[in-house]
Each structure stands twice: as structure tokens, then as C-alpha cells.
């Protein structure tokens, strides 16, 4: 177990700056998830911590040591790759033992550690099989087992679930969460999937274009995103964004002036589909015509077209009897409204 500290870390390929001075402190035993769209630099950052990419500027510390020039094997890390990177010509047992064999670990200790990892991951029946004889989920577990046997200070996961189907992904996600609570090791996990980020993380690091947009617990990111990018990226359903302005200190959305006090610099509001309510025409803040309805059983998403604000999505519990092409009236939950100004930053909280 060990803490990890990134101090003004940057990465340049030729003229291209990929990582722009990232500062981050990861505590001992913490589960931190790097999340962001493709090309945001999250995998590069992880590979820099792993020692697979050079560090152009700044420092990376694992424990109290600066590891910038330390070769990967000495950093006390273990990495689980997106493609699992199992050696196809070795049995499951040898796949897990390989690193220990290379580092001249005594035979009986290798045996003990491999058996222990196999027990934790329920891989005991498969130890003598080849990787090609395993299912995707089993291969994934072997890749994790290979990390466990090394007893690393820090686990690094690079999109480990993206090659699994949806059902298996949910199950493996749970196993990784269990593994973290039983090992208590520091884990850094890269994903582009915000559901994985929300469910696994102690803290989420949202990256965009090589910069940290926000660091926080999943709930902090959900309820008080620092800017429009984080607001749009985190959350089960995509947030609705509407152009806005201020008229006499009140919020103006298109033609409507709503009874919410806002500062004059507001240019955009965002509200999550679950924070909109279908209402009567009298109470409504917004109205429109239903474009299409998606039924999920436990909830329903209603997408409606407004005259001047574009397509807006409402989430309703259970099923709904609202039909396509019907008119719809919707109320905003004022305290759940996120206000943004030109710089994209969140504005002062709203008041009535």
C-alpha cells in the first residue's frame, strides 16, 4: 500500500502536448478512477505512473520516492491491461507465476501466492488451462490474478472491462469492488464509462484534453459539477443544456422569464432528466411536443421538442401514459438547476 502523488506532470509527443501539468494526490488505499472521453490523456497518465511512458515534466511520487526515472518493475505497481495481455502460450498457472519466476522468487512461495490468488478469484479449476480455453470473464480474472500475486503497492487498471459484454461487466465490476475492500490496496482505474467511475470510485478524476476538470467523490461530481463538461459527462442520463440569460436578475430561457434569481453573467443552464417533473400547464416552466418515448420498465425517458430550446429529456419513474406527438408540460426543480457562464464555470447557487 502506498500513496501516489502527481506534481505538475506533463507529457509532450513532439510538438503535441498531451498532458498539461496535472496535480493530484492519491491517498493510501484509495480507489481513484480516471474518467474522460477518448483522447483525454487518461490512459497516458496511467501509463506514466506505470513507467511505460516517459514523463516530460513534473514529478510522480509513489510512497516518498520520485519514480520519474525508476524502471517500471521497481515501482511496486501491477497493471491490468485492456486486452488482458495474457501470454497465450502459457497455462493460467504460469501466466500468474511468470513475474515471480523472473524475479527469482522461491518455488514454494510462488506456488503459495498463485494458489492464494486463484482461490480469491475462483480460478482453481482452470490453473492448468491455456488462455484460449477460457471465457472473457475468466481471462479478465487471470489478468487480475497476475497483478495480485505480485503483492503490489499500487494496482493500475487500464479499461479492464471494456472487452466484456454488459452482464459480465456488471459482475466483474462488483468483483473488483470486493477485491479493493479485501486487499485495501491503492487502486487507479481508467475508464471512459461513467457508470464504472460512479460505482467503483472513492474519488473520480475527470480529465478532458489533458487537464483535470474536477476531482471529487462520485456524489460531489453528480450534485455539484465544477463546470459544464463535468456536468455533461457524469450522470446516468445526459444532462439537458439550454441557452439562458438574465433579465432584471431573473432567469430567462428562450421567451420565458422564470421566477429564479440569477446573476447577470449566466449564459447556459443544465438540468438532469431526473430533476424535471411532468406537471400541469399552470405549474409548468417548459412545454413542448413529445418526440419519442423510451420505456425501460423501471423508468421512462420522454424526449420532447420545445419551440426555442431544442430537444429536452425528462426521466419519469415507472411507466408513463404519455404518447408521442402529445403536448407535454414540465416543471424544473430549482435547487437542482446548474448555471454556467461564458467560461463554463458553475455560477452562484440559485435563489427564489
Amino acid at each position: 500500500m502506498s500513496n501516489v502523488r502527481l506534481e505538475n506532470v506533463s507529457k509532450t509527443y513532439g510538438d503535441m502536448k498531451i498532458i498539461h501539468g496535472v496535480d493530484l494526490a492519491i491517498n493510501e488505499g484509495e480507489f481513484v478512477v480516471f474518467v474522460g472521453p477518448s483522447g483525454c490523456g487518461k490512459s497516458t497518465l496511467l501509463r506514466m505512473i506505470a513507467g511505460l511512458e516517459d514523463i516530460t515534466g513534473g514529478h510522480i511520487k509513489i510512497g516518498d520516492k520520485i519514480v520519474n526515472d525508476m524502471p517500471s518493475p521497481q515501482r511496486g505497481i501491477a497493471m491490468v491491461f485492456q486486452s488482458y495481455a495474457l501470454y497465450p502460450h502459457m497455462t493460467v498457472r504460469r501466466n500468474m507465476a511468470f513475474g515471480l519466476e523472473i524475479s527469482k522468487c522461491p518455488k514454494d512461495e510462488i506456488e503459495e501466492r498463485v494458489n492464494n490468488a486463484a482461490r480469491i478469484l475462483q480460478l482453481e479449476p482452470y490453473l492448468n488451462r491455456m488462455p484460449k480455453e477460457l471465457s472473457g470473464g475468466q481471462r479478465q480474472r487471470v489478468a487480475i490474478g497476475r497483478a495480485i500475486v505480485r503483492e503490489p503497492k499500487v494496482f493500475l487498471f487500464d479499461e479492464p472491462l471494456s472487452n466484456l459484454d454488459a452482464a459480465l461487466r456488471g459482475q466483474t465490476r462488483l468483483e473488483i469492488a470486493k477485491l479493493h475492500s479485501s486487499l485495501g490496496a491503492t487502486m487507479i482505474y481508467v475508464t471512459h464509462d461513467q457508470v464504472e467511475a460512479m460505482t467503483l470510485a472513492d474519488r473520480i478524476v475527470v480529465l478532458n484534453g489533458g487537464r483535470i476538470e474536477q476531482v471529487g467523490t462520485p456524489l460531489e461530481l453528480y450534485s455539484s459539477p465544477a463546470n459544464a463538461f463535468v456536468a455533461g459527462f457524469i450522470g446516468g442520463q445526459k444532462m439537458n443544456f439550454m441557452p439562458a440569460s438574465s433579465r432584471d436578475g431573473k432567469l430567462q430561457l428562450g421567451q420565458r422569464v422564470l421566477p429564479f434569481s440569477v446573476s447577470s453573467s449566466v449564459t447556459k443552464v443544465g438540468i438532469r432528466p431526473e430533476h424535471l417533473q411532468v406537471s400541469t400547464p399552470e405549474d409548468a416552466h417548459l412545454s413542448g411536443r413529445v418526440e419519442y418515448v423510451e420505456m425501460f420498465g423501471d423508468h421512462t425517458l420522454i424526449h420532447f421538442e420545445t419551440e426555442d430550446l431544442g430537444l429536452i429529456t425528462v426521466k419519469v419513474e415507472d411507466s408513463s401514459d404519455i404518447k408521442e406527438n402529445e403536448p407535454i408540460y414540465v416543471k424544473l426543480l430549482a435547487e437542482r438547476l446548474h448555471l454556467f457562464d461564458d467560461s463554463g464555470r458553475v455560477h452562484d447557487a440559485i435563489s427564489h
Partner: protein
Amino acid sequence: MTINSDQKHTPMATLALVFVAIIWISPFSWLFVNAVDTQATGELRWPQSIGIGNFVSAMSGSAAQQFMNSMILALGTATMTIVVAAGAAYFLSRVYIPGKTTILWALVVMRMMPTNGVLVPIYFTAEKSGLLNPLGVMIALTILNLPFTLLLLKNFFDTVPLELEEAAHVEGASLWEILRHVVLPLSRAGIAVVWFFSFTSAWNEFLFPLIFSRTDSVFPMSMGLYSAFGEHGAIQYGFLAAYSIVYAIPAIGVYFLLRRNMNTGFAGVGVKG
């Protein structure tokens, strides 16, 4: 729909197949019949007296020496080719060099020129460096093998995912350990093909041993076969046939030894879920 394999052969088709079979088999039967006939005359006839005398003389004395010379030459060339080509091909596969594919193909195209065209410079180079001996033949053949084998092995190494090497690196393996435990085992099929190709071409090589050899004692079997046609005044057909069979066996043997490896290429395990 399945293809019907029970189609009746027409008499004409059967006749044609028999004809082709005879054409194919007759040289081999000629070879075999003469090899086991101690009084062979070179005619295709029923053996007069069956015995293994021809094989005994084809595997003893100078014939045995020539067998050993061929073996050393072929094993040496194949091994030298693999060592040099694998090292260079791994480098070519993993390191970014602008225009490396073009360079590689240019080498292959140049190699398509007849070897005889560059025989004179090769000969003088060997003479000046004191390599007019079997080692010189091995080096010359290795160099001539390199363009094709580099291209082939580079393509094999390209199929080994970089993540496997990164995984081994993170686990503490050195470059040599990564090559030995990960890259080379996964490129077994390519290495087997290159080794087989180099072995048989060196085994069959006639021209280079001819011009590089200074003494009879270093002649390989290809040259022994040539001299068996006239060295003893009259041609001993029984000896010649037995000698030819002994000459052909190693190449076939090597093929069967390596066949398993050649058939097991790299299956992209580990990527798909």
C-alpha cells in the same frame, strides 16, 4: 449445401489419374529399384540381386564425410540466419524507422537478381577475408537469405501484441527475457519456416561450395553427387541411386520435425473477450 464427394469416376478420369501417377512415381521407383540392386545398370528393371550394399557405401568413407559436411553447412546456415534475422527483424518490428517497409522491400527486390551476377565480388570478398572455406559458405548464404527472412520474421513479430511485452516488462522481465519467454515462443511458426527454408536451401546449395571449397574433405553432398557421375570411370548407378536417397532424407526429416510448429501460428488469444 455440402459438396458431394461420392461422385463416380468415369473410366477416362481413372485412366488419366493412373497416367499422371505413373509419370510421378516412375523416377522414384527407378531410384528405389536401382538403390537396392547391387548389380544396378541404370535401367529400370526388376532388381537382379537385392541388398543394402549400395546404401552401405553411400553412408561410409568419403560419402559419410560429405553427409557430415552438408549437415554442418545446413545446420550452421540455418542457425546463423535465425540468430541474425530474428535480432534484426525484432528491431525492425518494434523501432520506428522512417520508410522501413520500403527499405525492406528494396532489399527483397534486389535479392531477386540472380546470385550468379554477384558471384565474382562475393568470391573476392571471401578470398581477401580468408573465408574460402565452409564458414565462408555459411556466411554468404546467410547474407543472401536475410532479405526474405527479415521480411517474414518482421511480419511475425508484428503480430505479437506490444501489450504482452509491456506486461512482461512491468513484471520485471529484461529485454532478453521478454524475447526468450514471450516474443520468440509466439513466433515459433515463423522461426520454423525460416529455419526450414534456410536449412534446405543450404543443403541443396551447389555453386557456393564449388567455388569456395579448396579441398575434397570439405565437399558437401551436392558436390559428391556431381562427382559420382564421373569420378570412378564408369558410373555406379546403384551407388548413385542410394546416395540420392540419403541426400533427400534430411530435408524430408526436417520438414516432419518442424511440421507441428509450422502449423501452429499465433492465434490472437487474449484480445477478444
